[in-house]
């Protein structure tokens, strides 16, 4: 950690020794930077003047001017990757998982529909048909009971014929 040796007694560790060469180099670099800045600042008359470095070293200028393209690098890698992941997760959510949930619902509705059809045809139409048949039968039977003696004699004759035929061909053989 920079400046860590000042805190050495706090951390109860041996601090690094002061190195005159290292410190000297650092100081020289900093001084050179200040001197260069001082020197070049003289070439501007106004703030709108072109940067002399741009002409002398266009590539270097662009790199420095754009902060080494670090931001662009981030945007192109981590930024793009996060966006892609966000789109992908969202797609899974809405197009896969939610569809599955909805599909379960649809299947349930289909089962309900199927159940309705079975209910309707078998358990509803069946008894309905039975009831209708009974009603129709009842109506027919009622119309048979005319109260006329001729009709009743006719029925008795038909009945005797049927029983005779039944006796002859059904029981005798």
């Amino acid at each position, binding site marked *: 950690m920079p400046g860590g040796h000042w805190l050495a007694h706090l951390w109860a560790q041996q601090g690094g020794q002061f190195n005159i060469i290292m410190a000297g180099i650092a100081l020289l670099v900093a001084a050179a930077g200040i001197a260069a800045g001082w020197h070049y600042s003289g070439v501007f008359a106004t703030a709108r003047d072109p940067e002399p470095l741009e002409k002398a070293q266009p590539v270097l200028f662009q790199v420095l001017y754009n902060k080494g393209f670090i931001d662009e690098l981030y945007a192109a890698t981590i930024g793009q990757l996060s966006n892609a992941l966000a789109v992908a997760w969202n797609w899974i*959510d809405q197009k896969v998982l939610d569809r599955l949930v909805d599909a379960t619902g649809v299947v349930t509705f289909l089962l309900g529909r199927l159940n309705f059809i079975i209910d309707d045809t078998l358990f509803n139409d069946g008894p309905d048909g039975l009831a209708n048949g009974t009603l129709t039968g009842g109506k027919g039977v009622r119309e048979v009971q005319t109260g006329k003696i001729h009709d009743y004699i006719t029925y008795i004759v038909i009945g005797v014929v049927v029983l005779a035929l039944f006796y002859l061909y059904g029981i005798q053989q």
Partner: protein
Amino acid sequence: MPLPPYLMASPEWMPPWLTLLMLSPLIGIALIGLAGVARVPDRLIKTFASTWTLVPLMMAIVVWVSFDANATSSGQGAVQFVEKIPWIQAVRVDYFVGVDGLSLAMVLLTTIMTPIAMLASMDVTHRVKLHFSLLLLLETAMLGYFLSLDFFFFFIFWEFSLVPAFFIIMIWGGEHRGRAAFKFFVYTVSGSIGMLLLFQFLYLATRSAGFPTFDLIALGRLGQGLPVEGISGDLATIIFNYAQELGITAYLGNNPLTYTSIAFWVIFIAFAIKLAVWPFHTWLPDTYTEAPTSGSILLSAVMSKMGAYGMLRILLPFVPDAAQQFAQVMGALALIGIVSGAFGALAHTRGSVKRLIGYTSINHMGYVMLAIAAVAALPGGASLDSRAIAVNGALMQMVAHGLSTGALFLLAGALYRRTHCSELTDFGGLRVVMPAFAGVMGMAMFANLGLPGLAGFVGEFFIFRGAWATLPFFTTLATIGLIFTALALLLMFQRIFLGPLNPRWRDLKKQDLSIYGLDFWAAVPLLALLLVFGIYPAPIMGLSNAAATEW
């Protein structure tokens, strides 16, 4: 009836306090009804209903103050203020309510969030009396759920809470409210059917062992192998013996773990849907988006916690062996939820505000799930510390998330009321015209994303610390969620408040939050609590500590 040592009745002089607490919102409904008959103007009814919610809040605070957080007995944190009355003798159902550290935190959260939801409903003009009555009904259902300790009542309140929530979404919701309310309702109900069947089975199994019961505390003690008067053995053996008696073992084999595992998954799915654990979370963004502000607040702040509470109350104590068996699976689902919630939120940084907040909720409930998985992985023993840390973290996160998400939905609603706009792309630069709004929402957002100094950080810190011991792999990867939720929330803030001012909103200046407005005062208590618990979490942590360490 005489109580075992781990159940503490309230003092003699006290009325049946928890029952009164649970019923107090219903009295509010009756009074609203009377006011309706007397043709009291709606404006007064709104004020009355909001003021009335202070009654349950005060009653809950009385419980909080007189609660003995250090009381433990026979290997568990003592359940206090117990009321236990035989209810349906034929099936041994008792009216059994009580609080321990787990439920008290949730009761407090419920009673704090209901007044906020009321304040957020002040702009309701359509069927005002019904709206406020439903909010009170929902409060009763939620309180009943957190207080009931008999499965019969627990399940009634669990299902019943859906009814007021359904109508709140259905009548006052957004454009696609019908679909959202329907999905929310059906999904939760269908998820809990298995649990209902399981409890029938548990009742029969305990009956065959000579101790028929729906008592959640007794069943939890049996599950953990703690002594219960009137019966010996643990729940896993009781379940297995009954399965053997029925002859199911001929098909499913002789491993007792098979049967507790079935019980585990049945309970897990019921609560995982409510907690919006991946992949059971898809109802959540739709529902939070379509619900009116009051509905979004109560759904996100309290109702989603019903799932986590159920896992802590039922899942882990009943079937600790199966929970340990599947702890890694739960951890994996938690991790996927954390990551998918975070990226889901990021995918909506150009979409609806409420949907984005909904996705961050999935992410935050993922942390709660991670903590529960970590607790499941360590049933007692040497690493008790990490277990207690994880439980405390889960509870703290539940409270903190309730407060901060409640605040975010409140402010999203307030923003919508001012702009009639909820798409993030339509805002921009609102900080210029509404600096106070930006400040308040900024604080709510930072609390939500877990900035140190606010309560969300405490919860997440404890969860990560507790989960690290057992699920290091999932815990490491879960930090991805921290970064991307923060990113999504910051982008939300940026799109609303920063950048050049969208000329559409030039006239909003007069509508900034002010100390003369209700919106401000609705947000202040939440932010204040977030700050207090962020710096000094002991009032919440202390509650659950006895329950968490003993259990």
